[in-house]
């Protein structure tokens, strides 16, 4: 009643002008410059980077606190931080809470954060490499290559002399090998077109997957179980020893990528425009290949194949901050880390005491998110306007 009473005079005063401009804004097609001049139809500049970074940092801290606190034995945030503070101060207490936080949950949460950040960064870069917003780090054969390597280790004890590093080594080697194969095969033509790259990636991925299947088929049934679990992704075996390699890889890759953020923006325009902007396209492309396979390789090595993160998170980040990689990369690291920590929290609590493979969780969250995004922004996916 009251609503109706207020609405009528308003519309009478200024006929259809109140609602439509806002609606127009969303559906802005190719508008004449004159029609957008009204100010209200104009989009404002992006949020300042530091605001987004602070928000994402807070999100990450919250995610990690919850990730450490929640479980079969629940701890309050205060208790969680008390343990961490004790350890950082150098005099840990000998309590159950201490053991749970420091020995079990903290390394797991940190590993999830690092892997989430690495996969997000790798996804962001691959999307630029193939100039397709629907690409993810596993498109170019990285995951399937890593799987071949890791499966060979798990089933046949390859690289046994490397001890606990054997699986990591095998999967990084597999990832780099696969990426190199994709790169070389698509390069044999005079130019490297994104479509060609995607096709070669898809084809070689299929090939590597069948190699993995073949290895599983030939291996012994008990080992097969662990291979399958690994293939679906999990942080169940996380420990401190696994952390340094992916963390260092992430830091090195991020430093390189932030240094190359402008060339990366130019490269997002396409290889030819990038060349005209003074980017050494061949070198940049080769380096991006190496950096991406390294990051995705070490991530896969410690956690298995976790899908959708490298695809969905870069998208969400691009929606928030635009596509300038000086913004996308740092925000992606924080947001990707938070996303993975939350995902892992769900994976181990949703069917407790059992643990769900985290790949299942990320797919359940990722698929609907992606569909919503695709429907909201059709022009990003090849459909023009």
């Amino acid at each position: 009643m009251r609503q109706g009473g207020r609405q009528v005079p308003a519309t009478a005063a200024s006929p259809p002008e109140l609602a439509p401009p806002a609606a127009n804004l969303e559906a802005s097609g190719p508008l004449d410059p004159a029609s957008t001049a009204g100010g209200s139809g104009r989009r404002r500049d992006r949020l300042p980077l530091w605001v987004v970074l602070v928000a994402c940092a807070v999100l990450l801290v919250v995610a990690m606190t919850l990730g450490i606190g929640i479980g079969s034995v629940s701890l309050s945030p205060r208790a969680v931080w008390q343990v961490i503070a004790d350890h950082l101060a150098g005099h840990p207490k000998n309590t159950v809470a201490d053991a749970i936080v420091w020995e079990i949950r903290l390394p797991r949460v940190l590993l999830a954060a690092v892997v989430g950040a690495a996969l997000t960064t790798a996804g962001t870069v691959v999307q630029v490499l193939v100039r397709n917003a629907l690409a993810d780090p596993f498109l170019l054969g990285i995951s399937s290559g890593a799987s071949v390597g890791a499966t060979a280790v798990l089933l046949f004890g390859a690289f046994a002399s490397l001890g606990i590093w054997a699986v990591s080594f095998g999967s990084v080697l597999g990832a780099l090998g696969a990426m190199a194969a994709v790169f070389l095969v698509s390069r044999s033509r005079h130019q490297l077109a994104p479509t060609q790259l995607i096709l070669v990636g898809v084809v070689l991925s299929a090939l590597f997957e069948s190699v993995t299947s073949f290895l599983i088929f030939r291996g012994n049934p008990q080992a097969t179980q662990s291979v399958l679990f690994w293939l679906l992704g999990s942080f169940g075996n996380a420990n401190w020893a696994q952390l340094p390699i992916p963390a260092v890889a992430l830091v090195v890759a991020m430093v390189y990528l932030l240094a190359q953020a402008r060339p990366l923006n130019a490269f997002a325009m396409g290889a030819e425009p990038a060349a005209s902007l003074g980017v050494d396209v061949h070198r940049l492309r080769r380096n991006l290949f190496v950096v991406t396979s390294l990051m995705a390789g070490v991530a896969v090595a410690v956690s298995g194949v976790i899908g959708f993160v490298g695809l969905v998170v870069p998208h969400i980040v691009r929606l928030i901050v635009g596509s300038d990689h000086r913004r996308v990369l740092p925000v992606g690291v924080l947001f990707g880390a938070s996303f993975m920590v939350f995902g892992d929290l769900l994976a181990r609590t949703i069917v407790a005491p059992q643990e769900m493979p985290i790949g299942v969780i990320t797919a359940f969250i990722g698929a609907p998110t992606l569909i919503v995004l695709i429907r909201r922004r059709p022009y990003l996916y090849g459909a023009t306007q």
Partner: protein
Amino acid sequence: MSLDLIGLSVDIGGRPIVKDIDISVPDGRFVGLLGPNGSGKSTILKAIYRVHRPAAGRVLLDGADLLSMPHKASARRIAVVAQESTVEFDFTVLEMVMIGRTPHKRAFDRDDETDRSIVAEAIERVGCERLAYRSFNTLSGGEKQRVLIARAIAQGADHLILDEPTNHLDIRYQIEVLELVAGFGMTILAALHDLSLAALFCDTVCVLSDGVVVTSGPPKAVITVEMVRHAYGADVLVVEHPETGTPHLIPRRSPREGAALTGPKAPGPKA
């Protein structure tokens, strides 16, 4: 001072596309590259902006070997506006034009006041102030092209390469784009499709056919009925533009088909 291509040959996938051509673009001039599809116009331009590596020959900028310069250094001298295209990612007009500053920046450099004022001025020069915060992908073809021109201006080069910049644009924007770039006083080398438009804007034109320069000179001397028949294999009329006196093409229908369609009662040509 000039941009000179000397004995330039370019192969693509082992096939010779451009064969031993010589073209000189003197400072401040607007030189047009003409020729049918596949004649090698684009390939020549891409050899200059370092997408294709020439099989033979040299590209000299003011006498210095352009292709042995650092990539950034050559990009500070030569900017490119190609055909309007879609970008897969969401950049605002402002961000798009800022990308033009790439060859001037080192790793970790931030955008400073100079960059911002250069970008703002570039956007102003193409008249896109109102679009500054719009997403590039939501613009019309003509608007996109103006933004890409602003990016080239922000690049701060004194040479501009245009690779069929008016493709897919309607007549208003075709004229607007060429008028805009011609007004900058930059040295321009442009591959153009429309011979009449080329005649209006170019000081010199080079006609390519099958990867070689068949003729070059002022538009009035080069754009003739014979040249179009020879290079393009098309039968046209060439008249004088009533205002500028430059050659203007009038398409013709081939006599037999035209007669069949207009019917037996049609008067003879130019009754």
